[in-house]
């Protein structure tokens, strides 16, 4: 179901966490709220969940599927929420954790035990933890716990699914797996989802749409392609990935990402910048070359392995860095 947030601000004792934020999430969409810590993304998520209330303002509205959520009690909203540190019920088994939302329903809406067990077992199968159903959260790995947290949130058939840095506490490999798994899950169960993350790679990979936040405001929103290739501000550009800054002669600042630069042994382009190679890191899909320019600034360049072999460069070599094409020019 669609989420609509209009003119929401939130101030914690003298600190403005959100400043007049408006946001729409379409039915069935998966969006990522991306930003550095303190940018207000978690506050916005908690306000959508109803765990925090916005500053009082007549213009401010938070609606889920056309209903003003401030008019509804927390437990009536059917919000699926996944916490960064899982927040599993530590004294309950995996099965009971997932069953919790079904067991606390008012008596007349409660499922009969066999139906409830079926629903929970189906979910355990979905998260591939059937074998672990009678274990306690402390006996599971971080990735398994987060899957239980997801199943628990899905058990109540939420109208929206909110995820607060769900993979933040996991190691790189598990993160990668869970991201892919979340993407597949969302295709199977297309519930409107909002994912909060500070990891740009995660946001670009998982979300249909990325909303970039900074200082309590939305800087830019769009598809991963749009925000990556057409950043509207220096903040978005630098936040979305490694970027090199060149001070052009007349035209002001020029930005380029490492893969948009090339290295030559001789000056082929009048705009080429002389630099010295500091470090070459060739373990990986691309060769990462770190250089220092004449005025001491660091330049990062990514080359293909073929190009690297062709150039035959080594550390300490003096070379010229050239733009394949400028990514963006600002000012």
């Amino acid at each position: 179901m669609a989420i609509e947030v209009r003119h929401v601000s939130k101030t914690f004792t003298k600190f403005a966490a959100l400043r007049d934020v408006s946001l729409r999430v379409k039915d069935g969409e998966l969006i990522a709220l991306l930003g550095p810590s303190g940018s207000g993304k978690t506050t916005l998520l908690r306000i959508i969940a109803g765990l925090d209330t916005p500053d009082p303002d007549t213009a401010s509205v938070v609606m889920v599927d056309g209903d003003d959520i401030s008019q509804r009690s927390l437990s009536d909203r059917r919000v699926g929420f996944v916490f960064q540190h899982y927040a599993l019920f530590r004294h309950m088994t995996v099965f009971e954790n997932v069953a919790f939302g079904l067991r606390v329903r008012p008596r007349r809406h409660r499922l009969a035990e066999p139906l409830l067990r079926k629903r929970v077992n189906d979910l355990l199968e979905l998260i591939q933890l059937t074998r672990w159903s009678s274990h306690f959260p402390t006996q599971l790995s971080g990735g398994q716990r987060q899957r239980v947290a997801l199943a628990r949130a899905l058990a109540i058939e939420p109208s929206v699914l909110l995820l607060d840095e769900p993979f933040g506490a996991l190691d790189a490999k598990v993160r990668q797996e869970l991201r892919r798994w979340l993407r597949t899950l969302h295709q199977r169960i297309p519930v409107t989802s909002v994912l909060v993350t500070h990891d740009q790679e995660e946001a670009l990979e998982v979300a249909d749409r990325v909303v970039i936040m900074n200082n309590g405001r939305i800087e830019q929103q769009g598809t991963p392609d749009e925000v990556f290739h057409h950043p509207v501000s220096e903040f978005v550009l630098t936040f979305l990935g490694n970027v090199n800054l060149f001070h052009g002669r007349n035209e002001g600042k020029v930005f380029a990402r490492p893969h948009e630069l090339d290295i030559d042994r001789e000056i082929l382009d009048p705009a080429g910048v002389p630099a010295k190679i500091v470090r070459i890191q060739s373990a990986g899909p691309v060769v990462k070359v770190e250089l220092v320019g004449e005025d001491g600034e660091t330049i990062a360049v990514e080359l293909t392995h073929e190009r690297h072999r062709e150039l035959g460069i080594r550390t300490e070599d003096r070379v010229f860095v050239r733009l394949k094409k400028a990514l963006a020019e600002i000012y």
Partner: protein
Amino acid sequence: MSEHKAGSTESPWLRRGLIGISVSFLALLILMPIAAVFTEALRKGVGFYLQSITDPLALAALRLTLLTAAVTLAANLVFGLAASWLIAKFDFPGRSLLLSLIDLPFAVSPVISGLIFILLFGANGWFGPALTARGIQIVFATPGVILATVFVTFPFIARELIPLMQEQGTEEEEAAILLGANGWQTFRRVTLPNIRWALVYGVVLANARAMGEFGAVSVVSGHIRGRTNTLPLHIEILYNEYNFAAAFAVASLLAFLALVTLAAKTALEWRIRAEQKQLTEEL
């Protein structure tokens, strides 16, 4: 029991020396006095001992002590839970003031705690005359004894719970509420199971103190035999009347109650350890 913990590299002599010091210290300061209580109690024979502890005045004191302990525990259970919940899960103005107030009974002498109630409810106290006019007596009666005991023991449960609840945070409760649980379900199914052992532990400590409290109760009780004397007060009276054997006999009864409390606490600790062991073994 000779299990050597990994990482401890002290020489066996040092270890034996330390164990020796602790054991003799305990023997001198704890075991000997307890042994003395029971020996003195039985000095005039078993018959006199049984007679002393079944004396109507002794039984009345026992009854009042048990009643006081029961009411105190019930009151402090509710208060302790409410205060800890408030302090650990919410941020509100006056929070640190409430935290300090909870510690107040630890900070002031029990005699002063007793005097506070005389000042409030005594014949010349703030509310004394109004209450007397309605035929309600608090000081020098059972309500006074109970009030003083509740006051002296109220930090025990709250102090056990607050650090634990603060450490556990509020995320599990938030998760429960978002999953549709109401306030009571959240408390009953999530908060209470997470704090149950600390709660029982606090109850045990509060119980020990409630049964043994002397100072505050001494001030408010008025020492009316058979009516407002608790076991500790009864023991003092017997002792002051040079009725040593009877005093020690009743003291042994109180000591026995303390031992029961202690046994309950130890049983609880075993149970917790067994539970934790089971968890780690399964891992």
